């Protein structure tokens, strides 16, 4: 198992038999095109289901409606960049609350670590958009150009009209899917029905067309042409996901202790692997899983389905390739040491396996982090203020000396109102007796003489406020004061601490 062989396509072009002078080394490696074969089986069925679910969510979500009243977008999930609002079902976030999005991304990252440490590259093999769209594009390719062998033959064939027609049909279908993908992405940032109509009638803005084109092009190139090159050369995740995995993580593995030595089905004294290359032919990244764990393996498990089919046909137990932990592989390997191939070796090897250890320090840490961040986000969401006031003390000048020897401080009050109502709030000041509060902007007063400030519905209202100390009050350089906003019932709707500054006494 320790002997890892790089897959063919990673090797330099003409591999000279003996050490060659550096000048003869090729500058680049030719890409070996991968022609994955169709396969059936439980893993493939799960992959189809995940694909349908992911694509379904992606395409359907922008069309879901959510009534928020008149004058407000009724799209359930919408990033409204022009108005600086993020709508998610009943939640409406302002730009300063973007930490909720950051929190969601952190949750996603920790969940990814946790899942990887338990089940290996589930994300890469099943849910990553690159995998999902590549799978979809390959499915289309198979419909139009046929399966592995037919495609290989077609690529080698001369360019006849029939070949042109097939290739054109394939790329047209790909571009169609890519356009739908790029279009759906735009819909998360614009009202879906409106922007769809605009795109179709040619009335959308240049910006919409640009991003529509950009995401159409990236989908077409990445899923149609680049495919496994994205995972092998572009994506950083395969590089460091190994840090999440350990010997107890389930990874797609070839049970070499059972398969080796390879040989013909009817040969004597050989293992279960008949060297049929079914696992290699179905692999979307074109590797041989029997070479052991490798960077290129995205953990999709299609080789498991392929091998199981062969084993079934040969009447041998399934699971020569399986989701297996490295510790079990080592245990089986040790248990069957020096045993000849045969039913006894299989039984001994399988008996040495243990159930995967789910509870490990690593998973506990991930679970702890996951619940801590999740709890923090839930708390933040529940305690989220819908009305808040920010008091900005003037910086220049910090205070103004008045003709009578008094001192005045200027403040800017910003009332952020995240609701659709427009409450009128009375402004009260908690400060040493003698300090006088005035609002510069014309404002009415309530029965107790407190100025009444109007909050803007779903917006920010700004007021200039002055606090004046008459001469001889004997205040220190800095005096804490508190501004309170009282609603119609006299309850404190929002409050903010500030200071009153004066000359050194």
């Amino acid at each position, binding site marked *: 198992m320790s002997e890892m062989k*790089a897959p063919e396509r990673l090797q330099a072009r003409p*591999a000279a038999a003996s050490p*060659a002078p*550096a000048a003869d080394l090729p500058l*680049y490696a030719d890409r070996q095109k991968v022609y994955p074969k169709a396969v059936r089986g439980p893993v493939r069925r799960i992959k189809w289901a995940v694909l349908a679910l992911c694509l379904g969510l992606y395409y359907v979500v922008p069309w879901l409606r959510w009534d928020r009243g008149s004058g407000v977008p009724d799209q359930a999930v919408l990033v409204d960049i022009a108005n600086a609002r993020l709508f998610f079902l009943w939640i409406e976030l302002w730009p300063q609350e973007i930490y909720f999005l950051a929190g969601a991304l952190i949750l996603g990252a920790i969940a990814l670590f946790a899942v990887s440490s338990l089940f290996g590259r589930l994300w890469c093999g099943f849910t990553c958009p690159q995998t999902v769209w590549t799978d979809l594009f390959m499915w289309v390719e198979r419909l139009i150009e046929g399966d592995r062998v037919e495609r290989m033959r077609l690529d080698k064939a001369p360019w006849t009209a029939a070949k042109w027609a097939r290739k054109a049909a394939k790329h047209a279908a790909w571009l169609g899917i890519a356009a739908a993908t790029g279009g759906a992405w735009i819909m998360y940032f614009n009202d879906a029905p409106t922007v769809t109509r605009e795109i179709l009638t040619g009335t959308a803005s240049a910006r919409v067309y640009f991003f529509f084109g950009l995401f159409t092009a990236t989908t077409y190139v990445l899923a149609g042409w680049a495919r496994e*090159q994205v995972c092998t050369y572009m994506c950083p995740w395969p590089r460091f996901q190994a840090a999440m995995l350990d010997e107890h993580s389930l990874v797609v593995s070839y049970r070499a202790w059972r398969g080796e030595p390879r040989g013909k089905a009817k040969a004597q004294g050989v293992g279960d692997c008949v060297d049929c290359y079914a696992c290699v032919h179905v692999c979307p990244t074109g590797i041989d899983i029997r070479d052991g764990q490798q960077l290129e393996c995205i953990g999709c498990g299609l080789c498991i389905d392929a091998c199981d089919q062969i084993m079934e046909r040969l009447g041998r137990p399934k699971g020569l390739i399986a989701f297996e932990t490295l510790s079990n592989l080592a245990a089986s390997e040790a248990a069957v040491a020096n045993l000849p191939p045969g039913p006894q070796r299989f039984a001994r090897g399988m008996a040495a396996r243990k159930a995967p250890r789910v509870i490990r320090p690593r998973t506990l840490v991930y679970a702890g982090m996951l619940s801590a961040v999740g709890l923090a986000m839930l708390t933040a969401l529940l305690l989220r203020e819908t009305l808040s006031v920010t008091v900005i003390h003037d910086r220049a000048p910090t205070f*103004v000396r008045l003709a009578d020897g008094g001192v005045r401080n200027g403040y800017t009050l910003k009332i952020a109102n995240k609701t659709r109502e427009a409450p009128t709030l009375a402004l009260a000041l908690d400060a040493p007796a003698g300090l006088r509060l005035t609002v*510069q902007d014309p404002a009415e007063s309530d029965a107790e003489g407190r100025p009444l400030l109007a909050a803007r519905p779903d917006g920010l209202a700004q007021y200039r406020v002055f606090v004046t100390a008459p001469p001889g009050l004997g205040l220190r350089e800095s005096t804490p004061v508190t501004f309170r906003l009282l609603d119609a019932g006299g309850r404190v709707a929002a409050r903010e601490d500030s200071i009153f500054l004066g000359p050194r006494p």
Partner: protein
Amino acid sequence: MPTKIEKDHVTGTETTGHEWDGIKELNTPLPRWWLLVFYATIAFAVLWMILFPSLPIRGATGLTGWIAREAVVGEMQAHQARLEPMMARLRATTPGEIAADPELRAFALAGGRAAFANTCAGCHGAGGQGAPGGFPSLADDDWIWGGSLEAIRTTILHGVRNTEDERARQSQMPRFLADGLLSAAQVNDVAEYVLSLSGRAGDQAAAARGAAIYAENCASCHGERGEGNRELGAPRLSDQVWLYGGDKASVVRSIAFSRGGVMPAWQGRLDPAVINMLTVYVHALGGGE
């Protein structure tokens, strides 16, 4: 040149021949498409240099003729054009009407803030707090030439003590000591009297002697009780705000040698709409009357 190129027995790949502390590097070539992308970026850079000004040579503007400065000027002009309807309204209204109209007022405060930072803050400070040495605070409630919207507008339009505008605010206090109008002792006495107007005299006898001198020489402009006169631009002497410092030495110096700052006239330099915006903004700094 690397000398020890060998085949790595694990991967079957050749090494680069470099070795660091026993660590060897495999020679794994890039995929061809990656190399092509690299070449494409080089081609892009060359194309960019041909199309856009890239060389520090006069006249090397590139085939497109695009120049950053012209683009900025164009954008600023477009911005001005967008503001023009509002500016036209501001030009046609008085500061009083602007202050009463919430929409115009909000626009004028924002525009006035920017214009103030551009043209006024150099002397009067970023928040209109003024600066020592004759740059009055615009945020307090003490005005030499008046703090009403109209008075502020007049001061901005014509300036103070400048020679370029006939209607500039003019005032000239005599140099009482330098021109021999008062003796040094008399200046000292009248300074004590002036300090006594805000209750800060140190020498009551001198202040008493100074009262007569004050009545004869100063009261005509600064008022019987130092209340000042905005028509003449004579500051109030009975309050706590001192343009050139309120300690005795400063007061003595002001009497002896006279002091007065100069402010340029902004009419003709600034758009009338901007002057209206500045008026409303300065009025709203806190001291407007």
